[in-house]
């Protein structure tokens, strides 16, 4: 068995296009999903019991059901109602819903782990609820949340590969296509793995650097 990357060269643009789509859907779903997650978190710690239950149910269900099943539910399941979403929209919605639940949990864990003493010090100085949150809890909470959020983005990016099963032409899908056309299986998947690895590594290192820069205290 010989190793030969040459056959792959004509397909490089295709692979890069696939990579671009993977990144693009990850970023989009991450941003929208995080906003969703923020609302879910606020609902969960808020005053209204109905909202607490709804958001609690959303978070628990999504965290205990595989992403693939959610994707299938949207792409195939909704056809039962006559709703036919294309692969792109199905993927975006599924990733967004998925991400939202995890972000809500990240926010909860991040803000809960701010040392209680800071809250008490703020109270002892006479601060009310919102002042306490704004001056004593918010920034330390964000510091806790930051690495978890970047980690979540990396995971989202890696799991965006799931969309290949519904024929979205993201990177993994393109890899399968190139494999079937060149039969250079080993080379194709190695290159694919490396592409994912490079991106996730860059993101991880960037996160580390960002954390040091942003939170100098």
């Amino acid at each position: 068995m010989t190793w030969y990357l040459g056959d792959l060269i004509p397909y490089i643009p295709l692979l890069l296009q696939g990579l671009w789509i993977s990144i693009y859907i990850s970023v989009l779903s991450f941003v929208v999903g995080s906003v969703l997650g923020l609302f879910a978190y606020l609902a969960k710690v808020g005053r209204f019991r109905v909202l607490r239950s709804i958001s609690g149910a959303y978070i628990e269900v999504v965290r205990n059901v595989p992403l693939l099943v959610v994707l299938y539910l949207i792409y195939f399941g909704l056809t039962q109602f006559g709703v036919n979403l294309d692969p792109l929209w199905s993927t975006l919605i599924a990733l967004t819903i998925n991400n939202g639940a995890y972000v809500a949990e990240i926010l909860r864990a991040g803000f809960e782990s701010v040392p209680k003493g800071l809250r008490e010090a703020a109270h002892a100085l006479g601060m009310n609820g919102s002042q306490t949150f704004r001056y004593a809890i918010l920034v330390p909470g964000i510091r806790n949340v930051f690495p978890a959020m970047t980690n979540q983005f990396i995971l989202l990016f890696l799991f965006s590969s799931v969309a290949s099963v519904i024929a979205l032409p993201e990177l993994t899908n393109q890899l399968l296509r190139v494999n079937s056309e060149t039969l250079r299986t080993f080379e194709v998947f190695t290159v694919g793995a490396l592409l994912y690895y490079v991106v996730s590594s860059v993101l991880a290192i960037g996160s580390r650097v960002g954390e040091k820069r942003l939170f100098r205290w």
Partner: protein
Amino acid sequence: MTMIEVKDLHKSYGKLEVLKGISCDIDASQVVCVIGPSGSGKSTFLRCLNLLESITSGTVIINGHDLSDRKLNTSAVRQDVGMVFQQFNLFPHMKVLENIMIAPVKVAKKPKAVTREKALELLDKVGLASKADVYPSALSGGQQQRVAIARALAMDPTVMLFDEPTSALDPETVGDVLQVMKQLAEEGMTMVVVSHEMGFAREVADRVIFMDGGVIVEDGDPAEIFDHPKEARTQAFLSRVS
């Protein structure tokens, strides 16, 4: 004049009663040290004085604020009663000066310029004038605690509460903090200090209260309590820690 009036204070967590009827009066400018074994309720007692713990029953009147009054403005009480914690609890994301200024500016709504001057004065008073522009993480424990004292003083309280202020410090820095507290006492601040520092109690306190099992066992002059304890429990405790 009586600064703090405590009558039959009870505090329970669910079924567990931690304070079983505490009564004492503390005069203005008095320095009271509360000692006792762990679990005696001394920290809980202290934290009831600024409502970090709620009162189950009994009365506490501190500088005219009746803490059992339902319509009480908790924030006003806390602005009047300063607290220093064992773990300092400085805000890590704010520099030292901002830590001291944040409450006077945002809670007491004092003007920034005036507060800034005052904060720098207080910082100088605790011996840390050069550290105004650093983050707490750059300071030693003793330095952080002194900043915490300055932060509490910035609100111009009439009473200062200290919850084991030196228990989390290296022995070398304990002295610096006690020095600041001593100075505060000499200036006439009413202080209630929960501490294990018997030396400080002997030297600075006007009064020592020994608590055990949620009640005040003995209450008197430092010299009396340390040298001639009346109660068996007091004797037992003192012989264990001396």
